């Protein structure tokens, strides 16, 4: 067995004289290629398991959005030796939680159990990962459940706005597909599609397994080896590499929700991929503009004008690209005022950038949030799998705050001009279209769609 052990307890300096102790971890690779990272962390008597494989919804077949997501959901709905009901009974009995889900770039199985129930939990967790059966009756149940869920989404203005924004901003790129499935795809997805996806992603040489919590490292490694050593290495098809293209021009989409008294608003474009060198300066810039509670957006929309209860901006980043999205909502009467403030703030930010004081506040804010996010075992597990998935340097956690602090004002000004688009924008409004059409006139080429068109 090939064993690379890196046992480093490192500490992070979050402010002058303050250190966070990150518990030491070990990293092993089994002969079949499975990477195992273990971190003993005894704050609470729990253990958190997270197995991640590369390949998510963006690898759905072109005509079948939803395959990755359904495949992931189905993994815990029956294995070769356990029915869905038996699995649920067993995990519920120990008060644990277990789920499998698909992101755009990956699928992840997670489980949290009490320390005393680790053996029971691990038996279920490994069974679900290694031997899912994808029974046809469970597939049909999931299909019907999702079709109903598509209807339910049409009742939720915020969810509608997000679905439409994602689809329109990514356009033809796989990130723009409706990852939970569409009315058409849900009718056509078959068991073979799920099996094919499973076989191309769930293999030891494409996976990393992280366990954080209250256990003995050597004992845990032996337990994991007993479960996962026989997992067979396979060949994985090449993953897609095309990047999403930036949207040109101004595009307005009105989703007609006739009874809404408040309009959900999303404004943005394509952002950056997660390994982009601008990642750190852009985090700082975005915090100044639209994260936390003293951002410019909150100050201008909420504090000064009482136009909204919430306003934020973000740059969700994935392997091949990401988005840039400003989110808020306001009563129908004040849509124009709200949009004018948002665009005015983007213009001002592009022109003048941030002040030194704003930048330092943002850096401290990010540093503090990062430090606190390392308190819970599942958050640690998630941070560690991200390092493997995105190929971050192994000192990513250790150096995160330092990299945030190293950002200079000139970096901030530069990334603002590069990534906070103003002339090329997608604007989505979930609103009574008749009443609101006049209010958004002049913002760009406008299309009005129904709820049925909004949620495909």
């Amino acid at each position, binding site marked *: 067995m090939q064993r690379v052990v890196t046992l480093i307890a490192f500490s992070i300096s*979050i*402010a002058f*004289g*303050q250190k*966070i102790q990150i518990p030491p971890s070990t990293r092993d690779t089994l002969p079949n290629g499975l990477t195992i990272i273990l971190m003993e962390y005894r*704050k*609470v*008597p*729990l253990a958190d398991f997270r197995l991640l494989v590369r390949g998510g919804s963006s690898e759905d077949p072109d005509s079948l959005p939803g395959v990755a997501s359904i495949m992931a959901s189905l993994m815990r709905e029956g294995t070769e030796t356990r029915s*869905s*009901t038996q699995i*649920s009974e067993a*995990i*519920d*009995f*120990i*008060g*644990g939680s277990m789920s499998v889900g698909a992101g755009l770039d990956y699928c992840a199985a997670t489980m*949290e159990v*009490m320390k005393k129930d680790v053996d029971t939990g691990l038996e279920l967790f490994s069974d679900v990962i290694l031997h899912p059966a994808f029974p046809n009756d469970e597939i049909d149940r999931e299909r*019907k*459940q999702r*079709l*109903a*869920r598509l*209807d*339910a989404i049409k*009742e*939720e*203005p*915020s969810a509608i706005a997000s679905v439409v924004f994602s689809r329109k901003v990514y356009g033809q790129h796989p990130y723009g597909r409706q990852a939970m499935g569409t009315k058409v795809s849900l009718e056509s997805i078959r068991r073979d599609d799920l099996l094919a996806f499973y076989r191309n992603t769930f293999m030891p040489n494409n996976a990393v397994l992280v366990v954080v919590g209250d256990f003995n490292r050597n004992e845990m490694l032996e337990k994991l080896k007993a479960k996962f050593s026989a997992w067979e290495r396979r060949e994985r098809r090449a993953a897609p590499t095309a990047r999403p293209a930036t949207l040109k021009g101004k595009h307005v989409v009105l989703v*007609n*929700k*006739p009874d809404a*008294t*408040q309009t959900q608003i999303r404004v943005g474009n394509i952002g950056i991929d997660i390994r982009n060198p601008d990642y750190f300066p852009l985090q700082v810039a975005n915090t100044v503009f639209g994260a*936390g*509670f*003293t951002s410019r957006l909150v*100050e201008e929309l*909420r*504090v000064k004008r*009482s*136009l*909204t*209860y*919430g306003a934020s901006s973000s740059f969700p980043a994935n392997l091949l690209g990401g988005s840039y999205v400003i989110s808020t*909502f306001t*009563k129908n009467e004040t849509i124009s005022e709200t949009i004018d403030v948002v665009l005015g703030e983007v213009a001002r930010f592009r022109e003048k950038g941030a002040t030194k004081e704003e930048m330092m*506040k943002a850096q*401290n*804010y990010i*540093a*503090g*949030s990062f*430090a*606190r996010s*390392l*308190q*819970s075992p599942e958050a640690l597990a998630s941070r560690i799998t991200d390092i493997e998935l995105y190929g971050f340097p192994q000192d990513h956690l250790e150096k995160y705050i330092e990299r945030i602090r190293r950002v200079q004002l000139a970096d901030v000004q530069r990334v603002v001009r590069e990534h906070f688009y103003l002339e090329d924008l997608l604007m989505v409004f979930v609103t009574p279209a008749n009443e609101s059409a006049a209010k958004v006139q002049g913002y760009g080429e406008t299309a009005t769609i129904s709820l049925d068109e909004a949620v495909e």
Partner: protein
Amino acid sequence: MKKTSVTVVLLACALTTSWSQSITTDEFTLKNGLKVVLVEDHTVPSVCFAVAFHVGSRNERPGITGISHLFEHMMFNGSKHYKPTEFDKILEAGGGYSNAYTSNDITFYFEEFNSDLLDKVLDMEADRIRSLKIDTVNLEQERGIVKEERRVSTDNSIQGTMFEDLYAAAFVAHPYQNPVVGWMKDLDAIRLDDAREYFKTYYAPNNATVFIVGDFDFRPLKKKIGKLFGEIPRHAKPRPVVNAEPGQNGERRVKLHKEAELPAVAIGYKAAGADSPDSYALKLLVTILSRGQSSRLYKRLVYDMEIVTEVNAAVDEFIDPGLFAIYAQMKPGEQVADAEHEVYEIIDDIAQHGVTAEELQKAKNTAQADYADGFKTNVGVAGRLGFYEVIHGDYRKSLTVLDRYTAVTVADIQRVAGQYLTERKRTVVILVPEQPGAEQSSSH
């Protein structure tokens, strides 16, 4: 809530339970009645400061509903020595954040920040409790924001509207009939003197408890707190709330016509007060009914019959008896009546035949895991202690709650199902979906 989310919607609350794990608390009370509870934990160089006030929408009267929550917003807008927005700016510049929530019974403020900012936070907190700036600018600003909050959490949320209707119909005398966020017209009607009066009555040191959890040293901290908070004057104890709610002797049914895709139903039974022994049996019953895919409601309605998209149960943990509520959203083409029929059959079955020993054990195991979960973060610990202090009358009860769950028997579960979940104590809200744009739907 101040920032991200809405006032407490019943089904959105996780089941919060406790278990007796060893954390060490230190406690002292200042001469003005302010009680302070400290928990040292050096896992991360961060501190959570929280203050719980014994006030919520339960203390409100008609005409100014929503004032507790509106007032919570106003607490962030400046005090004698700090300008508006300075509170948050100092916190964020110190690597922290602040937030707060208001519910029926409690108003809870908290902030987390790097340990070296603790002195500053103490000063800012003492300043706003002593001398909040209550003026027209502050009130009008937050009035507009809270109305947007009401629009997002209730008026444009189907479940939000259903639950507002449910409480309004279930309670005829108790203030629990009013939404925490307040009725829209009351939000327009609240005046500056109402806010001043409210501050004077409820934001007194003798009506509050402070919790500090995290990376600090006990000795110097105790001294500083005495110095900063000790001078804030005590006020007369607020008048106790009368629970005038009469017994319910018949089912109440309400229809809600609203643009929607799918029918849905919300069912509420009058439950027990949080500190009643029955409340623990009811919480375990919630788990047996709806927690996890093996729970009775999920198994029957979602998995076996496939008639609902989701079904949830929850029981209020309120000072006075709240509701034991069940919510189900139908799949396309399915009838609410069928879901109701199944729910009542499952409840009747438990009332008549009880649950298995295994089901009860499962619920207790879940409570144990939830308990451990609450100790992951400083803010989790502070939140739990504060909640128990106000709702259960003593934060220490959160550390012995394990015993109360352990004491629940299979017979107790059967008894509470029969005693509380009866037709006569039931209120039902049925959502009748209307097509977008339609004036009214057919009725029968």
